[in-house]
């Protein structure tokens, strides 16, 4: 598999866009599930109430990969998510999440060759302010 060709063809363009309406209760539930104790994350009555920093990681788009992307689910597994917090997410916000393939690269480990596909979701609020960037790594054995 030519990783450079794959990256050239599939990386860098938006293949999915979804909308999320933000409500207070799920924000507080997520924070409590994460073990947060600060009222600004757990108490909707707090004047600075907002989502916990990793909140955007709970969202999925309509597609994990662009239509037609050569995939092999049986040889793939989840490589985890990294969240880059940019600005608070608050109840009443409307978030637009746009997905693109941010990177495709290869590395070797004890189990052999692996291809990493980095799915990036950029979350903007109703003011076109980017509030969170979530990189989701999908790993495929080669």
């Amino acid at each position: 598999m030519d990783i450079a060709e794959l990256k050239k063809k599939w990386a860098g363009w938006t293949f999915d866009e979804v909308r999320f309406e933000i409500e207070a209760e799920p924000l507080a539930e997520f924070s409590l599930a994460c073990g947060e104790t600060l009222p600004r994350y757990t108490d909707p009555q707090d004047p600075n109430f907002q989502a916990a920093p990793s909140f955007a990681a709970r969202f999925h788009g309509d597609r994990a990969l662009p239509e037609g992307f050569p995939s092999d689910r049986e040889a793939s597994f989840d490589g985890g998510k990294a969240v880059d917090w940019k600005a608070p997410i608050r109840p009443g916000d409307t978030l637009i999440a746009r997905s693109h393939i941010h990177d495709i690269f290869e590395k070797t480990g004890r189990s052999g060759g692996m291809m990493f596909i980095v799915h990036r979701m950029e979350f903007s609020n109703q003011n076109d302010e980017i509030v969170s960037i979530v990189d989701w790594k999908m790993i495929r054995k080669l």
Partner: protein
Amino acid sequence: MILDLHSHSIVSDDGRAKVENYCQWIRRKALSLDGFVLTEHRLYDDESDYRSLEDEFGLLILKASEVETDYGHVLVFGVNEDLRAALDFSRVDLPLQEVLAQAQGCGALAIPCHPGRTRVGMCAHIETRGLVEGVRIIETLNGGSRGEENATALALAQENNYHSTGGSDSHIVSHIGRCATRLATPVSNMDDLITELEAGRCEAVVWESEEWISPN
């Protein structure tokens, strides 16, 4: 002087540690470490400047790379423009022989790391393809290696009279300094470090019972 010669920061795709947090951890835990080398995966970080952290924490922080070859992973110290022009660091199948030769020609130093690991270590490849000319130093203590992998590496070094180094291979803050390298002469920059390593004035050490121990 004790340096951790193998560590990764968030610059590496799988690194989860910020360099500042490594420094804070070393000081807060009072680790007996004089500094560390950032060996980022498949790239050389020419943007980050850690001099202010060196001053603030009194640590030596040097930059290097970990590349991937047909004989497993290799640390490269003294990366410069010539070497980066000669080798595509992003490749996962660089010929080890070429990495060794190009490093030597460019004034750098290549050291196979975690040689006892399957697939990404040199030992398994030696079994099927033989020794590689030009290897003089290998990493015999790696903080991320399992079970007998470090013992396998040490045996390889002893059989072939290779010099040895140690490094934590840390990807998270609390792993820095799990293994390290003792240098006979203190160094203050990459050139000095390469000189000491090439001269073999180094040994791999691990922190046990409140002191650095060499398993050699």
